[in-house]
């Protein structure tokens, strides 16, 4: 994690980015799962900054993820809503916030979560991606009808 290095960045835990995406208001402790959901791995070429358990007036504590030189699409960021529905997305261009939006829980998620049912056809070598309908009670497997009601992050592929 970077420390404050300039007067412009004073008070900031993580340096500002010139271009890219800032995901703010992530539920405390969920930043690494957010990164996992976005499919950002250790091999990414772009600068990635993660701040966890940052004091927040509204949330008590929150996490922040900054990804330089990449603007995330709405479909990508909506997946975050599964674990952090209050997250906000800021698209940064030339140090300015050009777009700010919340996340919306998608109706259907594909290829993100593994069905916990070992007997489910989606856990075989078939050429399909897992598919879940997002329902109020949890994630409903479109193949075997299993419902994941808790610990969604534990099932992320």
């Amino acid at each position: 994690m970077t420390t404050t290095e300039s007067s412009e960045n004073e008070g900031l835990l993580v340096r500002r980015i010139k271009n890219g995406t800032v995901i703010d208001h992530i539920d405390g402790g969920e930043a690494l799962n957010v990164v996992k959901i976005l499919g950002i791995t250790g091999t990414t070429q772009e600068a990635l900054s993660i701040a966890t358990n940052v004091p927040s007036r509204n949330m008590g504590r929150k996490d922040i993820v900054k990804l330089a030189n990449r603007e995330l699409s709405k479909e990508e960021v909506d997946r975050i809503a599964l674990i952090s529905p209050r997250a906000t997305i800021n698209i940064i261009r030339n140090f300015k916030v050009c777009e700010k939006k919340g996340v919306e829980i998608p109706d259907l998620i594909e290829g993100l979560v593994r069905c916990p049912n070992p007997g489910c056809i989606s856990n075989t070598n078939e050429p399909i991606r897992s598919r879940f309908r997002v329902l109020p009670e949890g994630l409903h497997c479109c193949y075997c009808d299993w419902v994941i009601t808790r610990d969604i992050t534990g099932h992320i592929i």
Partner: protein
Amino acid sequence: MSFESAMARLGGTSISVGSVEACSMAKGETLADTIRVVSGYADAIVIRHPKEGAARLASEFATVPVINAGDGAGQHPSQTLLDLYTIRQTMPIDGIDIALIGDLRYGRTAHSLASALSLYHARLHTISPKGLELPATMAAGLAEKGMEIIEHNDIKDVIDIVDVLYITRIQRERFPDSASYFNVASSYRITPELLAGAKKHLIVLHPLPRVDEIDPRVDVSPHARYFEQSKNGVPVRMAMLMQVLQ
């Protein structure tokens, strides 16, 4: 076998793949590929498969209609249609009290029947060994649809209140040893003595094959309907095939 019989009676022919071990899947072919190939050979596909969701997957890759004839511990909708037909031959389905007995966790016939009965304001009495109860998410889903589900420990507790006894086979492989299997299986047995306390119009159903769940002496009882039920599988499946082929 009943689907093959149904197709033959409709004047058509069927190609039976047999078990998974007997086809290209044993060589490592995916179900998706098998379905694509068989789509070119037949006008409809009837699939029974050990994995849950296999029929849904098949429907994604098939270019012909697909009928789910049982997917693992998931669903068995064609059995349910003939179950409902058999019940309706004796009584209106609306508002019945039905006991589901046996392996309700892995028993796909019980899953599909319970789901269908939720459309008929039926009251469900469940009796199953510990660990083989109706899956919690399924029970919650049925309750949400307004179905009343009452768990019991003993068939004797419900014998005088239910209209239908639906008993399923308890599989030996669900138990750690033979002794514990026989111990449980013997307590889920329908006998003439048990039926002495039943309503006059009660019917006993079983998706068959049975092992020890029903005493053979029950076969001649006016309550026994399981062979009639099995026979009904042919016209019901003929109707299903007609529906998808037209």
